[in-house]
């Protein structure tokens, strides 16, 4: 990174921080007793998690019949939730790997929390294909290995199997990437701790001492993992899109799906990062590390990806008409005007229209608008998957088997339950690990701290004064 920084760039670390202050500010929340807000949030999350456990038990005990799926609509809320969570699980690795390649320094303020969120979201996503099996104890059947069932092999031609590989690989690499970054920060926490706490963090940091050799290996590993993650980020949602696009179902079989799913995933991932960071920075008083400049940059990403998704929606509509293919034309007319028109309206207004508000700088830098918009996008992207999955299946080739689908309380409970799982994990994370990458923020202090860069930089003046004395 060049040491020369244009004065037009806004500083990314505010408050004239020293290296010690950075450690103090970011690590100390893990050393205090949790505040009331955290305790209340934790109780709510764990309660939702309990709902999840109950609904999973119900599903397995009663069977998939406790969901409202039927012969026509074989995928409903389950796969909608699965794709929604997988999409959310995109921002972390995108920020760590792709923004690293593009040298976007603002990533350091949010990458740790985003990566954590990625891992938790992928864990939530993974639940749905498993419980959809109904017989959870046979879940290992998805792995291809020589077996005594025939041998009965998995279907290598099925994108659903490719999903198993894609997602488990993505999860593994994301977890390693996240944990690698945490190692030096855990050591920082350890160095300030005493007693058992010190032993635990020493174990978690693998006995990191900060020796040159450690940093050298750390850098090498980070580079390898970044290289692996970049294609992985694209591959995961690409393969999820194949679940639909390889079929011959009108509305699913369309070539734009892979890149359009990836753009949508980045879109929803950033929205969830905003939802979490807006709250986290306030509660943990990290406003000088996750600044308005960070929030503004993420809102720009949301605007860009929202518009890309908009281009894709309109492309689909247009080409459906252009194809001259009757079923394709019907599928899209049904999407917009059919019985599920409300979900299409929800999708369009939340994903394409409402993000356009971010053309105004004032809106991009408003915490309130950012938070509301992030919720809008989360809702909109859930609707998008519902539109694609349920509305398409509800009206297939045979009008005699047309159907209308509404979820049962079990399905709703499962969705709320995964939210509980997600937030429980996130809240534990926010208490036990530095939510901003301490070592990475320190690394950019001199090229992005407000005492060194930006229009009001004063470091050189201070240096002059020191010389004069």
């Amino acid at each position: 990174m060049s040491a020369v920084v244009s004065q037009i760039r806004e500083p990314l670390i505010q408050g004239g921080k020293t290296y010690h202050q950075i450690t103090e500010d970011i690590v100390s929340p893990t050393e205090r007793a949790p505040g009331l807000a955290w305790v209340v949030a934790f109780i709510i999350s764990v309660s939702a998690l309990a709902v999840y456990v109950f609904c999973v038990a119900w599903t397995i005990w009663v069977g998939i019949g406790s969901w409202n799926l039927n012969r026509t609509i074989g995928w409903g809320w389950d796969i909608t939730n699965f794709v929604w969570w997988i999409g959310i699980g995109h921002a972390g690795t995108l920020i760590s790997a792709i923004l690293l390649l593009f040298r976007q320094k603002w990533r350091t303020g949010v990458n740790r929390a985003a990566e954590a969120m990625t891992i938790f979201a992928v864990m939530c996503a993974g639940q749905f294909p498993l419980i959809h099996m109904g017989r959870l104890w046979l879940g290992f059947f998805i792995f291809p290995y020589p077996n005594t069932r025939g041998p009965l092999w998995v279907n290598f031609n099925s994108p659903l199997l490719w999903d198993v590989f894609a997602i488990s690989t993505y999860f593994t690499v994301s977890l390693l990437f996240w944990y690698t970054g945490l190692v030096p920060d855990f050591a920082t926490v350890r160095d300030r701790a005493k007693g058992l706490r010190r032993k635990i963090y020493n174990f978690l940091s693998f006995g990191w001492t900060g020796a040159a050799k450690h940093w050298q290996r750390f850098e090498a590993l980070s580079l390898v993992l970044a290289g692996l993650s970049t294609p992985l980020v694209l591959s995961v949602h690409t393969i999820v899109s194949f679940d639909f696009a390889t079929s011959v179902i009108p509305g699913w079989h369309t070539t734009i799906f892979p890149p359009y799913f990836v753009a949508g995933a980045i879109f929803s991932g950033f929205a969830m990062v905003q939802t979490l960071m807006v709250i986290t920075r306030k509660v943990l008083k990290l406003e000088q590390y996750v600044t308005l400049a960070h929030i503004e940059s993420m809102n720009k990403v949301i605007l860009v990806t929202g518009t890309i998704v908009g281009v894709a929606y309109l492309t689909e509509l247009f080409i459906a008409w252009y194809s001259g293919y009757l079923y394709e034309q019907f599928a899209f007319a049904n999407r917009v005007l059919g019985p599920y028109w409300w979900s299409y309206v929800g999708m369009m207004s939340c994903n394409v229209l409402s993000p356009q508000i971010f053309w105004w700088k004032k809106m991009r830098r408003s915490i309130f608008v950012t938070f509301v918009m992030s919720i809008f996008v989360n809702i909109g992207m859930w609707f998008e998957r519902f539109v694609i999955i349920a509305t398409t299946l509800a009206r297939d080739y045979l009008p005699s088997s047309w159907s209308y689908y509404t979820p049962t309380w079990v399905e709703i409970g499962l969705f709320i339950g995964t939210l509980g799982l997600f937030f429980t994990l996130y809240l534990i994370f926010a208490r036990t690990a530095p939510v901003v990458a301490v070592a990475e923020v320190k690394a950019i202090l001199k090229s992005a701290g407000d005492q060194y860069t930006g229009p009001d930089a004063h470091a050189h003046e201070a240096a002059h004064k020191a010389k004069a004395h």
Partner: protein
Amino acid sequence: MNQFTFESRYRNVLIGFMALGLLCLGITFAIDDELHTRFWTNYLHNSVFFTGIAFMALFILAAFTTAWAGWHTLIKRIWEAYSLFLVPGLVLMLVVIAGVWGHFHHLYHWADAGEVAKDPILQGKSSFLNPTWYTLGTLIIVGIWILFAWKMRQLSVDEDVNGTPEFKHHHRLRIWAAAFLPIAGFSSAAIIWQWVMSVDAHWYSTLYAWYTGASWFVSAIALTILTIIFLKGQGYLENVTAEHLHDLGKYLFAFSIFWTYLWFSQFMLIWYANVGEETVYFFERRENYPVLFYGNLIINFIAPFFVLMRNDTKRKYGTMVFISIVVFFGHWWDFFQMIKPGARHTAMEALAHHGAHEGAGHAAETTGHALEFAMGFTIPGLLELGTMLGFLAFFLFVVFNRLSRASLVPKNDPYLQESLHHHVEIHGDEGH
């Protein structure tokens, strides 16, 4: 040297190549079939390809400005100059438009009223695929692109002289750049459907616009690398170093892979679902144009993937010249394979109708069998290469002309110092 002079020796060489291009076009016209299919497909192919590069240069500028990129400041004048080729690009496309109205060519199946009357699928599309929309679409869309190119160039050049400490020009430039991005997203799709996808008038693919966009993007980056290395060889751009080249190399590498990703997505989904209306596109290419079909992947994926994988190759001028030429040619080849098979098919049907009194049903026969080898269709011939060089010379003539009108270094750009001190971090590269 910050001021490029368009010396007469460059001028003469470029004029020479332009003459060669005209000569090749002339010969093609003379030895062509009665519909002059080879001539017109070559003309459309190169017009679309080079106009697209100009558009992509503008898109790159807009994207980089919006993303607050700083490293490219020293080379942004090159992209500004590229983007101004949109004006001659529009003129080139006007000739195709004139042909659609005057029926000089048979590039588009949908432009033939007699064919449309017999074809319910074309009738269904006729409110989009018709001469009026083709004309209006081209004029309006390329017109808007030209407006943005002109405005962004004007602001950038004016900043050299009238730049303020508050960077007013740059702030205005950001507004224009951001506004261009969604316009570019929607309009490039609409126009490529008309210009190229409608050559195969029955066929459709939602990914098509992004696929061609990626092809243009890689071509623009490859040509940029070549232009920079040429200018450096002539003593210009002394502050552009291996560091900048390295970043361009990364773009070339990454977007070659991205192009392949889109190629694969489009091909695989169509192959897997196996719907006849869609597979016909690839089937035709694989069976009758295997060199084009497989060559496309070898030149545009395998070559850049292996050459550009290592860090050090992106910093070597010789290697970068080599791979840029390969990839530039490769994406020209890609557009060749997008246009030629469909246009040839249309022409063969039309020719069969012309000679209907001699032997009806000839077209129906030929579509079922393997097509004969035809130079200029099955593979690009020497005439195609000459034509391409002619268009390239024309493109560079316009670019050099524009480059000579302003300083090569944008003096008051807020990111100039970042670009001057640009340094690419190479991880794990101890000892340097």
